[in-house]
């Protein structure tokens, strides 16, 4: 087997060294430029905007929640520290912290209700708050506040030499970058990345999406508040509502972040480094006769970035670097598991595919009885009864097959079991506990796993990272999760593709990732939705083997399937649904020859006239 020699595991050095180098280099640049006011100021601006864009990147890039009202936090930090300094004489150094805390508190206040809203509404609603701040401040006469300046005084954040501001901003930026890098490699980062790409799947894999979003939001706000203070004291002489809460702030942040590359570490820095000097230069040269020129450039840049380079300049660079590495690792042509082909796993594994014994199953109990009980469950959509008074007892440790024609309610049943839908009537018991109203991520932690008919994998993550998201449902330790995931990946036959991004996988491999991820959550009960869709006979057989192997390791499996002739080979018991009701139950043989089932599939007249009795 071709082993992947490129170690993906991030080391401490590998992660943070580039940032340290960056810090040193920029500091040296600043030093050697000397006391050229204008250039230092541009450098300062680059760093501040880069810091602001990076902050924004945390919640909006990595977290995928576009916060159009982001200037709320910058402005809050700025105004807080200025007002504290002016009216209470509190040192701006302390103001930095207080401002950040206030910004964070505001984020909590805003986030609690708004994070439940959908993308567009959320973005728009966040815009309300800077507007409100704007209005309130105007109304109490704080539209413009002159920052008291009594000569250079480091204690009140007034440096004579711009280079000291540069240093301060540089340190701040570096800290933010370090935090982002830490997020990228931590469980928190995985959760963010996952929920950004596919919130539904993330919920089902045990991620508390609401809480994760809120935390990212508050973190961004806190850092934004710090930036606000530094921005106020280093750039402004007079703080105005416009300069603190103005729309231009978010547009510029967006421009820099998007041109550089959202959800990459260096993207916003690159974006700021390119656009800020251009903008400042144009402004100084032509700003007199063409006042809006600078922002026109930024506006155009933003539009161009969104249309032509959504991943940004730095994102493109990363992608280009990724491709040759992929070529190295994944040099097996994307194949479908044809009978004649030898998949890229060694003989030992091929002989005993899908053995899951290494992974400790959560239950090995010899108890009988039902792991899941569905009692009297009804669910309707817009007047159509998808589930009618359903009673199903799922025997522990067995494979239960559910069949039924289109519209019989099978997927609705899964959604109800897994917490995505609430039944109108009835109750669900998992392991004896009532679970009817629990959320998907809670149910995942309790031991219900799921694969979707259309695989919901995270395309922008590698195979092993996808599986790690599942592993995190059990243990937050990154190294452990990685180890478990690599094992699972091997078992699923993905050994050669571990570090490949999921977007490049073929249909079979995608299904394997989906299964691997679900298995990594170590479920007690696995819901499998139409696994055989789109597979050829050989693959259908293999998936059947996989399901049997999972069941053999102690997991109860419920399978919905249309390819009945394959399902009967792996199911221990079966349930037949039609129009939301249970019409057959028993062994596979019993259910497939059940007259109601035949009628459900082929129509009432078939049975009457033509079927063998």
């Amino acid at each position: 087997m071709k082993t992947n020699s490129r170690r993906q595991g991030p080391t401490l050095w590998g992660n943070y060294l580039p940032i340290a180098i960056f810090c040193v280099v920029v500091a040296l640049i600043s030093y050697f430029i000397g006391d050229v006011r204008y250039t230092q100021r541009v450098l300062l601006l680059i760093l501040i905007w880069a810091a602001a864009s990076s902050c924004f990147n945390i919640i909006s890039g990595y977290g995928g929640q576009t916060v159009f009202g982001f200037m709320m936090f910058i402005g809050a930090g700025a105004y807080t520290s200025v007002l504290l300094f002016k009216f209470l004489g509190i040192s701006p150094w302390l103001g930095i912290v207080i401002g950040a805390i206030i910004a964070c508190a505001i984020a909590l206040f805003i986030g609690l209700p708004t994070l439940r809203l959908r993308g567009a509404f959320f973005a728009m609603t966040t815009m309300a708050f800077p507007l409100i701040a704007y209005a309130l401040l105007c109304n109490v006469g704080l539209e413009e506040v002159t920052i008291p300046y009594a000569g250079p005084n480091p204690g009140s954040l007034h440096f004579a030499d711009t280079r000291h501001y540069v240093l301060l901003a540089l340190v701040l930026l570096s800290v933010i970058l370090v935090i982002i890098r830490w997020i990228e490699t931590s469980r928190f980062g995985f959760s963010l990345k996952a929920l950004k790409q596919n919130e539904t799947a993330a919920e089902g894999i045990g991620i508390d999406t609401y809480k994760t979003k809120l935390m990212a939001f508050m973190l961004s706000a806190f850092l934004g508040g710090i930036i606000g203070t530094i921005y106020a004291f280093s750039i402004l002489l007079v703080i105005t509502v416009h300069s603190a809460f103005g729309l231009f702030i978010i547009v510029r942040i967006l421009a820099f972040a998007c041109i550089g590359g959202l959800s990459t570490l260096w993207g916003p820095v690159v974006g700021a480094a390119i656009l800020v000097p251009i903008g400042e230069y144009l402004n100084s040269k032509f700003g007199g006769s063409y006042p809006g020129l600078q922002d026109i450039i930024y506006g155009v840049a933003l539009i161009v970035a969104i249309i032509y380079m959504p991943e940004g300049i730095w994102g493109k660079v990363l992608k280009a670097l990724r491709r040759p590495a992929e070529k190295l690792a994944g040099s097996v042509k994307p194949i479908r598991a044809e009978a004649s082909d030898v998949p890229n796993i060694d003989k030992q594994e091929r002989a005993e595919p899908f053995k899951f014994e290494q992974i400790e199953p959560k239950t090995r109990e010899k108890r009988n009885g039902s792991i899941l009980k569905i009692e009297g469950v009804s669910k309707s959509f817009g007047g159509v009864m998808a589930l009618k008074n359903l009673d199903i007892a799922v025997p522990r440790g067995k494979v239960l097959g559910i069949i039924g024609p289109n519209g019989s309610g099978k997927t609705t049943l899964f959604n109800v079991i897994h917490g995505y839908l609430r039944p109108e009537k009835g109750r669900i018991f998992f392991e004896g506990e009532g679970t009817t109203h629990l959320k998907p991520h809670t149910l995942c932690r309790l031991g219900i796993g799921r694969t979707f008919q259309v695989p919901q994998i995270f395309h922008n993550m590698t195979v092993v990272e996808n599986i790690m998201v599942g592993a995190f449902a059990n243990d937050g330790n990154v190294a452990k999760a990685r180890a478990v995931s690599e094992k699972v990946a091997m078992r699923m036959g993905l050994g050669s593709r571990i570090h490949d991004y999921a977007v490049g996988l073929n249909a079979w491999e995608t299904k394997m990732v989906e299964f691997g991820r679900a298995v990594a959550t170590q479920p007690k009960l696995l819901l499998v939705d139409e696994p055989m869709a789109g597979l050829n006979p050989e693959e259908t057989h293999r998936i059947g083997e996989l399901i049997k192997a999972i069941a053999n390791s102690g997991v109860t499996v419920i399978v919905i399937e249309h390819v009945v002739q394959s399902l009967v080979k792996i199911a221990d018991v079966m349930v037949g649904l039609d129009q939301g009701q249970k019409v057959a139950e028993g062994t596979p043989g019993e259910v497939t020859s059940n007259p109601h089932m035949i009628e459900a599939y082929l129509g009432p007249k078939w049975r009457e006239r033509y079927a063998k009795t």
Partner: protein
Amino acid sequence: MLRLNEITTEYTGMKALHGVSITVDDNEIVAIVGSNGAGKSTLLKTISGTAKCTSGKVLFRDADITQMEAHKRTSLGIIHIPEGRQVFPSMTVIENLEVGAYCRKARASLSENLRHVLEFFPILKQRSKQLAGSLSGGEQQMLAIGRGLMTTPLLLMLDEPSLGVSPLLTSFIFDTVKSMHEKLKFSVILVEQRAVEALELCDRGYVLESGRVNMSGTREELMGNPMVQKAYLGVA
């Protein structure tokens, strides 16, 4: 009239059809049956252009329309009545019918076609000012079919018209489709999961299983054929 050669279509990233070939002649009713996930809907979508095939050819009246955009195929006379009816719920019955005649060719004969449709489905006339979303499943199905008729189809394709419709209305709909076919002389492709009703109506039929044509034949050959039952339930 219609010929599909070795069509392979992908749907949501998975191969839904593998090398499917079917033909439909002028003025005939063809049934396509098979279990769910067999690819029946995808087949219709490939013909109407709402799904693009990755290989193979779609030939309509000897012209290769494989690359033609979906909304253009309507003016050729290929009408697809989709699964789940897909009416426009907040428009009235009349508005739904009128928008059925959207393509240029159909606008000229709008009032005449409208008259025909209301004759075939008198209940639509009754409910003409009602919002389509408030109609029952069966009424919506009739509306969807009526809407398709507004463009004087040459090939009418129905995707599971019996779904969510009461048995009584289902019979009525099938009977009406048959009489429309006889009167207006267009070809019909009828996709149904419930084999009997479809097979009774058709001249010829195809059985799809896992994206492949399992068997084909005339109505007599398929009716009551235990191999058809096997395609669904794995047992004959």
